[in-house]
């Protein structure tokens, strides 16, 4: 009997292949949609992490109190040692030092005197080491408008609009005038090697990115950094782990009472991002529920129709003596099989593509003017543990439910009526 059923199943594409394909597609869309929704909602968090907050951030206690003033006199010293010790204790994180600073960018004429000058906001990161993670984090290659990325400590990138305003081009010299860590006047010559689009008006008006070594020289901050960002190697913010990590670090440092003792903050404890994360979860839940509901109805429909169209066959089986209960059971068993097969296949394919999307992202730059440092146009999916089973709600439960409801018709109609629907 089972072989008969299986043969019938496999030979009749409309009973097996079509529903299984429909279920697979439906599950695949559901799972990919879920990963996409989570990924795109977390995009803002990811941007903040890469550019400003890290998944965790280390600063001196004194710096943290007035961080919005960028007080480099209160910066971390011996940042290499700190970074190495953090990397040893927390090897799952990339640790990237950053310096934030302000000043004037002075453009010399042929006599070395000021031709033009403008206020500038600066950020320094490790952008010349070939395998530096900051080159990726800051999205520099994609945001480059003209020129190249810096290859030396005295090369910098400025915003394209700022370059236009100052009338400078690639290869032109520019002197940074600012304050050293000790309050002295800093003058440092850079070469402009490229222009970028930041995506935020305030930065596009006057901002620059330079290598951290050059800026450490410029601001007399040997082995210093304003902050040390920790970013998990998976690229994902681990919401439970990060605060624990920060608490553990801070507890170890609690005995050191000095105002220059480093403190660690998790992303959700900075810039009200904890609230943002709650908001994301809220929207994600709403969106995912919507999609899963719609997909469930679609696949329930599939299961329902798949059974409805088999009334003719069922009539024959009843006529040859199979019991209604047995037929019903076999219908449900078939739908379980199809649902499982479709769900497993759909989930597997979805996770494969989602993994690719998580790694490489989806470029929406066609819809946007251009890529920027702050707002990358590549949106990444995000696979979470939920992605492994969320497809089974529509793929298995809905399909089986549809079949179970349709199968009830067996008990309502007479054999003759079912037979009539055989249409042979």
């Amino acid at each position: 009997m089972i072989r008969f059923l299986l043969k019938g199943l496999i030979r009749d594409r409309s009973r097996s292949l079509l529903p299984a394909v429909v279920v697979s597609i439906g599950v695949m869309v559901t799972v990919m949609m879920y990963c996409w929704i989570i990924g795109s909602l977390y995009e803002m968090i990811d941007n903040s992490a890469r550019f400003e907050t890290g998944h965790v951030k280390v600063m001196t206690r004194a710096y943290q109190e007035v961080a919005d003033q960028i007080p480099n006199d209160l910066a971390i010293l011996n940042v290499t040692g700190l970074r190495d010790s953090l990397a040893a204790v927390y090897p799952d994180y990339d640790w990237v030092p950053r310096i934030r600073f302000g000043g004037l960018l002075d453009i010399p004429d042929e006599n070395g005197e000021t031709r033009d000058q403008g206020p500038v906001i600066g950020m320094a990161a490790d952008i010349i080491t070939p395998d530096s993670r900051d080159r990726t984090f800051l999205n520099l290659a994609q945001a480059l408008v003209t020129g190249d990325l810096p290859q030396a400590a005295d090369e910098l990138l400025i915003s394209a609009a700022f370059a236009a305003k100052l009338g400078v081009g690639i290869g032109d010299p520019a002197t940074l005038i600012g304050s050293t860590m000790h309050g002295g006047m800093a003058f440092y010559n850079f070469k402009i090697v490229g222009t970028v689009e930041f995506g935020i008006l305030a930065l596009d008006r006057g901002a620059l990115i330079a290598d951290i070594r050059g800026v450490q020289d410029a601001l007399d901050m040997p082995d210093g950094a304003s902050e040390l960002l920790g970013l998990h190697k998976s690229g994902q913010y681990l919401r439970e782990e990060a605060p624990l990590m920060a608490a553990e670090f801070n507890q170890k440092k609690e005995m050191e009472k000095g105002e220059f003792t480093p403190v660690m903050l998790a992303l959700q404890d900075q810039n009200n991002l904890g609230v943002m994360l709650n908001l994301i979860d809220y929207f994600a839940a709403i969106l995912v529920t919507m999609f899963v509901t719609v997909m469930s109805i679609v696949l329930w429909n599939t299961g329902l129709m798949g059974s409805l169209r088999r009334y003719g066959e069922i009539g024959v089986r009843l006529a040859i003596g199979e019991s209604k209960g047995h037929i019903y059971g076999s219908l449900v068993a078939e739908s379980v099989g199809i649902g499982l097969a479709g769900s497993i296949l759909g989930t597997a394919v979805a996770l494969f593509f989602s993994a690719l999307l998580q790694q490489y992202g989806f470029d929406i730059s066609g819809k946007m003017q251009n890529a920027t440092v702050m707002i990358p146009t590549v949106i990444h999916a995000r696979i979470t543990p939920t992605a492994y089973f969320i497809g089974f709600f529509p793929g298995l439960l809905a399909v089986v439910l549809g079949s179970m409801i349709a199968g009830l018709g067996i008990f309502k109609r007479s054999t003759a009526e079912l037979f009539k629907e055989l249409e042979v």
Partner: protein
Amino acid sequence: MILRLAFKNTLGAGLRTWLNVIVLSIAYVLIIGMQGLYRGMNDQASQARISQELGGGQYWHPQYDPYDPMTLDEAHGIPPSVLTGLVEAGMATPILCGPAAIFPEGRIRSVLLRGIEPDQQILDLPTAQLHSDHPLPIMLGARMAASVGVQVGDELTVRWRDSNGTFDAADAEVVYIFKSRIPTIDVGQIWLPLQRMQTMLAIPGQATMVVLQREGDPPESTTDWSFRDLDYLLMELKAMVRSKSVGGGIMQGLLLAIALLAIFDSQILSLFRRRREMGTLISLGMTRGNLIGLFTAEGALHGIMAMLLGTLYGLPLLTWLALTGIPLPGYSDDWGFALSDRLFPVYGPLLVLISTLIVFISVTVISYIPVRRIASLDPTEALRGKVS
């Protein structure tokens, strides 16, 4: 005749039809809902800035550049007479900006002073709180107050230079701390009465900008004070919402695709089930083209019925949402736009029309695609129930 037949067949299919229609209607309502959400988000954030910061547009002093603090010392003057006329008529309000320093706990901190008329009605700011007997009453946003560590009643030493460069300093009293959704009027800013600030800086009657009321058009006369309209002032916000809505558009597209999957599946099923019917109709003289049209019309009718059903429950639901808003957990002002604790979707007729057209066209196309194979149907094979 085709349409009547299609209508009869569609309704005659009973549950199958209604299932598809329900799914499609949900997708339809959700698409409109999501579009409304993005538009509401944009509008709300824009409205917040318009009501509390931008008014109906601003006239700026020629030297004023909000992104260059170096210009502030020079960026003030007597507004042109056409603008002072507006101010006197209550249709605009002047604001004076200037750099200063405060010394919370003995540490110097740069701030921006903003002088505003306490009685102004142009911006939704609690400026009336600046009426005080204290010689230097100031108002801070909640973020600024938290950052500086002050509360109402606390005194804060403020140091500034007047227009001649002479130092002055005084102990200001925080008379009010306001909550705002907009960081740009809060972080790093201190609000005080305009005339007081003009006296402090020794620049009587001068301002940095004049903010117009929201209603009405700006005056046409040209002055060297440049007019910044709302499109200019909200440029960055619009760009940010656009970037968000691209992701949203992708989600809506996929949502529609899921619903169309049901239609597609249903059409495929029809092809299998109704072979004999198709053969009969062709034998009775119906052209293949008409037959394709019939099946396509049946599919498209799902779309029409879905839109009607969607309107039936979607209209009251979306209207209710637009009126009551969607609660947002917690304070979301650091998201980059200014939203309140409720998000109010905004729907426009164009939005609904475009969404309707998209759904209808998509359904029709998806209905057509699988039934094209009818063109190669052999009627005799079909009459015998076989697929050719």
